[in-house]
């Protein structure tokens, strides 16, 4: 990862190359949580959905009814809305799980290795911020949360607690596995969204802040996940016995959970 960060590419090319390497562009806004508010921002947003008044004057023609409420920007396609729906749903589920994994691991790991307390707290705090970011986005964009919510709650807690009991190395291997899967998943989302934005720009469409902020949010989250991955490797995740089997097992579990959460 470290080699990618000292990238020779000029900043103007980030749009195309972004998905190739997680952190080509040094970002300065790492500490800014512009979206991670827990306030009920959705409540403040008055609905913009055009509506028919039951008692309104009967339009003389179909065209009149249609032209009176033309949107300022082109609507998203069905495929784009499908993508955004399952992306937000799966991200919220993933961050729920991440929060619970760290929460379950922390007391056990810290009891045996007090020097890891600040690191565990740092990673947990970031997960909490990711989780509230995606909670707010799911509510704002009216996406149905995953129906598997209670199941993921139990499984993530069990996973965090179980790996922590297996020792520090296993706990870190768990982080390694989870963050690898989540990181590459976020990468795919960023790639899709940038492609979508590029196509819209080519058609001369106005992108709008909503999508721009969304790409920025997912990209920032992804960078933080990959940071967690680095921390895990620095803390001897590879020394877990049996490392490969454990990591592969958890990664397979993550992929299954992602697959399910995207759909239900």
């Amino acid at each position, binding site marked *: 990862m470290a080699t990618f960060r000292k990238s020779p590419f000029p900043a103007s090319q980030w749009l195309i190359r972004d998905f190739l390497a997680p952190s080509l562009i040094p970002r300065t806004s790492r500490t800014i949580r512009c979206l991670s508010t827990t306030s009920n921002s*959705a409540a403040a947003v008055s*609905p913009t959905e055009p509506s*028919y008044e039951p008692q309104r004057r009967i339009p003389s023609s*179909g065209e009149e009814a249609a032209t009176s409420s033309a949107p300022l920007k082109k*609507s998203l396609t069905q495929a784009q809305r499908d993508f*955004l729906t399952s992306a937000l749903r799966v991200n919220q589920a993933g961050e729920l799980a991440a929060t619970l994994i760290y929460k379950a691991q922390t007391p056990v790991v810290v009891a045996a290795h007090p020097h890891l307390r600040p690191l565990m707290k740092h990673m947990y705090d970031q997960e909490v911020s990711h989780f509230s970011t995606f909670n707010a986005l799911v509510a704002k964009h009216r*996406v149905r949360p995953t129906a598997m919510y209670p199941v993921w709650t139990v499984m993530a807690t069990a996973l965090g607690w179980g790996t922590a009991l297996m020792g520090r190395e296993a706990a870190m291997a768990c982080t390694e596995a989870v963050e690898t899967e989540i990181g590459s998943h976020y990468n795919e989302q960023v790639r899709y969204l940038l492609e979508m934005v590029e196509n819209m720009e080519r058609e001369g469409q106005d992108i709008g802040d909503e999508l721009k902020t969304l790409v920025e949010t997912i990209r920032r989250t992804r960078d933080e996940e990959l940071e967690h991955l680095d921390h895990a490797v620095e803390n001897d995740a590879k020394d877990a016995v049996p490392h490969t089997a454990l990591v592969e097992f958890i990664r397979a579990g993550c992929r299954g959970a992602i697959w399910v959460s995207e759909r239900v």
Partner: protein
Amino acid sequence: MQPLRRRLISSSRLYHSYDHPAPPAATFNQVETAILDASLPHIPTYGFTQTTLLRGARDAGYLDASTNIFPRGPFTLIHYHLVIQRLSLAKQSHILQRSNSNEQPLSIASKVKALTWARLMGNKDIVHRWQEALALMAQPTNVTTSVVELSSLADEIWFLSGDTSVDSSWYTKRASLSTIYASTEVFMTTDKSHGFEETRNFMDRRFSDAQNLGVALGSLNQWVGFTAHAGLNILRSKGIRL
């Protein structure tokens, strides 16, 4: 079962964009909208029937044969009524923006109640025709659309009221509101009281039942959490490394 489930899951609750909003009521095209709109004033007299559609088509300046564009016939009229009534809730600014006498904004719960009542009152003028509508809605070919509409209504009310919970309670909230709404709506069709007073009481009782149920479920969750936590602490106090 598969196509039904897919439709239930995929057609509702898609990503709602503010910058790139979905086209208005994509369910109905321009001609359909014109005819259906013109049909609405005829419902109190002719009900949810082919006659109403025919009158609407004539009023909108279309030939009688144009009602052939509605393969589901009168059910389309019901569907249209459901959609416009649901979408008009967003314009209930006296509920959504009003402060009550103490200049306090309405709580989420009071908004949910007020919007549910506002939606029921949307059936006021056609309530004597609503039983025949319910019978049509329950037919096998229409039941999917009816159920999707009911859950969209519950979603709309919770969203407009400012509820932002996105955990498992998202489901229980929508399910209980759908149940309350559907049962009150049926009750309303037999209510002869002045200003639907009895319907109002019936709805209030359903809401307080649901609240009690919610409190019970909430304390059950708390109890499970507390017990698990206490159990863990006891094991720790016994010197077990957990």
